[in-house]
């Protein structure tokens, strides 16, 4: 296979995540830290948004993740994969936030009011853009709502595998559980999502059936 010579040249100037993190750890290298943030802000943000179901909250959590990475840089074990450590920090922050929100909802005096306000805020924060059709927006809301109903342990596996494309083995490393358990959770997550999204799936199936090319009558 022919390798791109410019890619090979470029690779001399691009350091790995582990090398960058080591520089952050030993020299407080801000440039290396900036590189890590630049590479990982997208995936971490997407994870946080999908785990807690709200865009602004997800953005805040993603920011908090990197602050924590810097604050705990001395705890990073250079022999381990940086991404595993990073995913773990982000997920733990998501779990904490979900726990905090549950406590807040439970202890609120005006439960109905606060729940309604929270849901409205999330709906507005989710912000489908004007160029998306109403159908797309509705489907997004359904998927978002279904994901929120999934238990957190299953949700994490589903988001990491389906949306962030981590292999099952990598997810096992992040969650510190056996690979078999990861696969079982994923199977259960998909089964539950099938149940939660049944109306949407039925509609899609009917829509596809209606738009199948029909056989023409031969006279």
């Amino acid at each position, binding site marked *: 296979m022919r390798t791109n010579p410019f890619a090979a040249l470029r690779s001399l100037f691009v350091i790995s995540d582990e090398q960058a993190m080591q520089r952050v750890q030993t020299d407080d290298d801000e440039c290396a830290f*900036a590189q890590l943030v630049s590479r990982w*802000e997208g995936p971490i943000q997407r994870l946080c948004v*999908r785990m807690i179901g709200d865009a602004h909250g997800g953005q805040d959590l*993603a920011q908090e993740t990197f602050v924590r990475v810097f604050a705990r840089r001395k705890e990073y074990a250079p022999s381990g994969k940086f991404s595993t450590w990073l995913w773990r920090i982000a997920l733990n922050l998501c779990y904490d936030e979900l726990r905090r929100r549950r406590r807040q909802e439970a202890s609120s005096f005006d439960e109905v009011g606060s729940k309604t306000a929270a849901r409205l805020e999330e709906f507005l924060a989710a912000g489908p853009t004007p160029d998306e059709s109403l159908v797309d927006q509705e489907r*997004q809301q*359904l998927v978002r709502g279904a994901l929120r109903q999934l238990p957190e342990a299953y949700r994490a596996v*589903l988001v990491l595998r389906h949306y962030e494309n981590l292999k099952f083995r990598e997810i096992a490393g992040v969650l510190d559980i056996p690979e078999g358990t990861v696969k079982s959770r994923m199977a259960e997550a*998909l*089964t539950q999502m099938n149940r939660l999204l049944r109306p949407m799936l039925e509609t899609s199936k009917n829509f596809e059936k209606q738009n199948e090319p029909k056989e023409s009558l031969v006279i």
Partner: protein
Amino acid sequence: MSFIYGESNAAERNNLAAHLRGCPDCQAKVNEWQAVQKALNSWPVRAPGLGLAAKRPPVLLVRPVLKWAAVAVLLLSAGFGLGQFASASVEADKVRARIESQVRQELRQEMTELLRNQVKKAADETLMAANEQTKTVLANYVREIQTKHEQDGQALYSALRKVDAQRLADYLLLKKDLDTVAVNTDADFRITKQQIIQLVDYNQPASSPRTP
């Protein structure tokens, strides 16, 4: 599950495909899962930058390399062309060789210099921007920690004041109860004293002698 997400090898895939052909329940399950996979893709999430990192250093290496590679190709082609049209003499070969080596040397020097400058510039820009951004983020973090400490301190102070007020109230109640007990005890003492005096009077024989 590995099959659904393309993590199984060819042998596993073939085995599973063979099984699915003969097992409608498993096939139905796989269909369900694949339908869910498709539905999940209805929710794309945009992730705008967090503003923590500097802009990525521009990929400056490609254009200059292309530019100089084009120059090198032109010069070498010119040299080759000259060699083709000129007589196949030793002089032409020497000239071509000299041109080539000169071009190569100059090209090498220029590229090295250019690379060094570009990398230094990109690194400086990235470092400066990253420095500022990181300082801002850390300052915000420290401020948040301080605010939280203040809030915790205020909550503690408020709790202590409540405890103090409660203690004072309890003390006042206790004092009132003690005063009541003291008053009642005093009254009881007086009654008891009177009773003792009466008893003494009653028990004392008549002291005044009778006159004959």
